[in-house]
């Protein structure tokens, strides 16, 4: 097909549950492409000689390559092509910020809508899961080398998968009772069905990766004890930890959650299915979520689905500065989430039972740019007002988890508590100890964590060969 004709095809929308439907259920919002839609979308790709989309992909997926295979109806081949560099396509197709990555640098983006690369990635990954027998790739001859992977988020899962294929013996240690990291405890079912994550974990088990759950390294066993037990390498993919609070009066009232707690109750513990599942969650009528990132968007949409009449985002900057993905903000708006921009709480108000009933807020205006280059919000004097709330979710980020650094002498961390590691290899200040993902970079993305895992696996393999 001629480029001119390809350019005439409009970007194919992925069918979705309507906002009315999805407001009260936890099922996935976008429903996926049909093969016809996928092929039509694939036709839009110009198969550039110098594919600029790939510049935007942190793991350099052969984007035109897999899209061509979709055009040719070889969906399984397309999935395999992606898996050459990205082991988690079903996850990444759903949660990667493509609008800031490959779809931003796609040549079409300037004049037209970019190719829906994320939707296509999701389509082939799902197709492979539904239709094809997932093939177990060739595993190299056993090397007899043992690797311990701490944490089962995208970084840990990627390292484990790559190293086991290279013939090493790999054990993953995870402190929660389910593997997947943020993918299981943080990102809600309506954005990433947990069955997807379970399938990835099962696949690793089939490859021969051992997974020990409810096993906190630093408590059940220290890093040094892992070495004593015969592991030659320890990879730390422990992710972000301790939730931040604002330290304003009344923060410990009943009804005030950290985002980690709210999300963990709902996603990991399935509190939305209480009492079928034992863990409860409070279904507030007026839910305010503080923050503007993906975590805040996820929390507020959970609040809505649990039955809130009013679900608010309270963010101290304006819409343009929100770090959340555009599609999530858009979905939230469609669902009727109310946004209070340039607003910050300064104090909580309670009833005599110790429950939050209100939040005193200040309006802000944007001043000079701060260190992050975004304009700094400054409070407007006397703009105080009170919002009526019965649930507040504080989603203003996490600091790092101290369990491993505290129990691992010689492991260097920076002033935020993140582990210092070479970004190309994951090498830390300790011999044989590698690290990658959020614990090194601070809160980032699934694909960056997976990419760090990929690089580190190569470096670990090289290191093991020297032993």
């Amino acid at each position: 097909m001629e480029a001119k004709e390809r350019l005439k095809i409009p970007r194919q929308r992925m069918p979705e549950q309507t906002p009315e439907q999805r407001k009260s259920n936890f099922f996935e919002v976008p429903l996926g492409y049909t093969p016809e839609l996928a092929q039509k979308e694939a036709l839009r790709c110009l198969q550039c000689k110098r594919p600029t989309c790939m510049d935007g992909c942190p793991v350099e997926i052969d984007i035109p390559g897999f899209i061509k295979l979709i055009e040719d109806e070889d969906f399984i081949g397309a999935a395999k092509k992606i898996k050459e560099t990205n082991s988690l396509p079903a996850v990444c197709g759903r949660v990667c910020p493509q609008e800031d990555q490959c779809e931003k640098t796609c040549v079409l983006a300037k004049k037209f809508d970019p190719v829906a690369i994320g939707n296509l990635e999701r389509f082939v990954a799902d197709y492979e899961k539904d239709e094809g027998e997932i093939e177990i790739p060739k595993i190299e001859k056993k090397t007899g080398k043992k690797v311990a992977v701490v944490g089962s988020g995208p970084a840990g899962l990627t390292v484990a998968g790559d190293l086991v294929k290279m013939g090493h013996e790999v054990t993953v240690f995870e402190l929660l009772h389910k593997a997947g990291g943020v993918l299981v405890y943080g990102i809600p079912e309506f954005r990433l069905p947990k069955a997807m994550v379970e399938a990835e974990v099962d696949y690793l088990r089939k490859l021969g990766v051992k997974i020990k759950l409810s096993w906190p390294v630093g408590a059940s066993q220290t890093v040094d004890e892992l070495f004593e037990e015969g592991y030659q390498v320890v990879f730390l993919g422990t992710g972000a930890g301790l939730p931040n609070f604002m330290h304003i009066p009344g923060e410990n009232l009943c009804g005030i959650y950290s985002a980690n707690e709210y999300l963990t109750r709902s996603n990991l513990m399935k509190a939305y299915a209480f009492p079928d599942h034992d863990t409860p969650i409070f279904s507030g009528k007026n839910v305010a979520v503080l923050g503007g990132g993906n975590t805040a968007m996820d929390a507020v949409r959970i609040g809505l689905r649990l039955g809130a009449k009013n679900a608010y985002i309270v963010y101290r900057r304006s819409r343009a500065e929100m770090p959340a993905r555009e599609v999530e903000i858009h979905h939230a708006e469609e669902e009727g989430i109310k946004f209070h921009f340039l607003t910050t709480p300064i104090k909580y108000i309670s009833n005599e039972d110790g429950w939050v009933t209100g939040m005193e807020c200040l309006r802000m205006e944007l001043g000079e740019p701060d260190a992050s280059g975004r304009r700094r919000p400054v409070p407007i004097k006397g703009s105080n007002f009170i919002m009526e709330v019965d649930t507040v979710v504080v989603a203003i980020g996490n600091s790092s988890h101290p369990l491993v650094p505290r129990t691992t002498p010689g492991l260097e961390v920076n002033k935020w508590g993140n582990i210092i590691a070479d970004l190309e290899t994951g090498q830390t200040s300790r011999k044989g100890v590698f690290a990658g993902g959020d614990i090194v970079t601070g809160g980032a993305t699934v694909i960056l964590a997976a990419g760090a895992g990929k690089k580190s696996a190569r470096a670990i393999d090289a290191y093991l060969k020297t032993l």
Partner: protein
Amino acid sequence: MSKILEKESLGPKINLIKLKVPHIVRKAKPGQFVILRIHERGERIPMSIADLDLENDILTIIFQEVGKSTAELATFKPGETLSDVIGPLGKPTPIKNYGTSVCVGGGIGIAPLHPIAKALKGCGNKVISIIGARSKELLFMEEEMRKISDELLITTDDGSYGTRGLVSEPLAEMLKNKKKIDFVMAIGPVPMMKAVCYVTKPYRIKTMVSLNPIMIDGTGMCGVCRVSVGGETKFACVDGPDFDGHKVDFDELSIRLKMYLKEEKIAMERYLSLMGKQ
């Protein structure tokens, strides 16, 4: 997965369970706790370490049936398995030779108090233990506590055994009589720990309490276990569970423990009706 080796009833709605968990037992110290889940739909239940058998890698927990999860746990029989046990969590109680240490345990709090008292005795303290319960049949571990204490005092609320009254009363009495006490460890219901701290505060005796707020992960990730200590917010699962009792905001803790009263009732009623149908 963790198999229940033994189970024993210590009184009405009080049960003891033994689990073989080598990786936990080898690392565990008095004052720490574990979190368990009974099955795939279960919540994460924190339980203190009541005893450790290092030779056989056996962990003992003692629990009271207070709601749905503990009631269901009580139906488990030896040979059956719990879906998860994680630990040891929290910081160990600081054990050293303080001189004379008084260990005060109320109700189910006697369980975690026992290994602490044992360790205090082990490193040379003179240990005076005061244990109490609402009534005689709710009192357990009397013999174990007697074995490791230089002196053992018993109280019951209704006077059915030992002295009638609260566990804080014999302690107040001792202090009034100018008995030299260097350290107090108090574990039990929130009002009891608050009362003990009220008694020791004027004498400036170092008093540690073990707090049991609602928890989920138990590793510092969710923040539900936050407590106010000396005006600062602490996460009981990683900064505690032991804290300087004179600095703890017990009233806030009591309020936060009631956050899910309504849901707890729903869960229990539903559970009972499901059990009734079987």
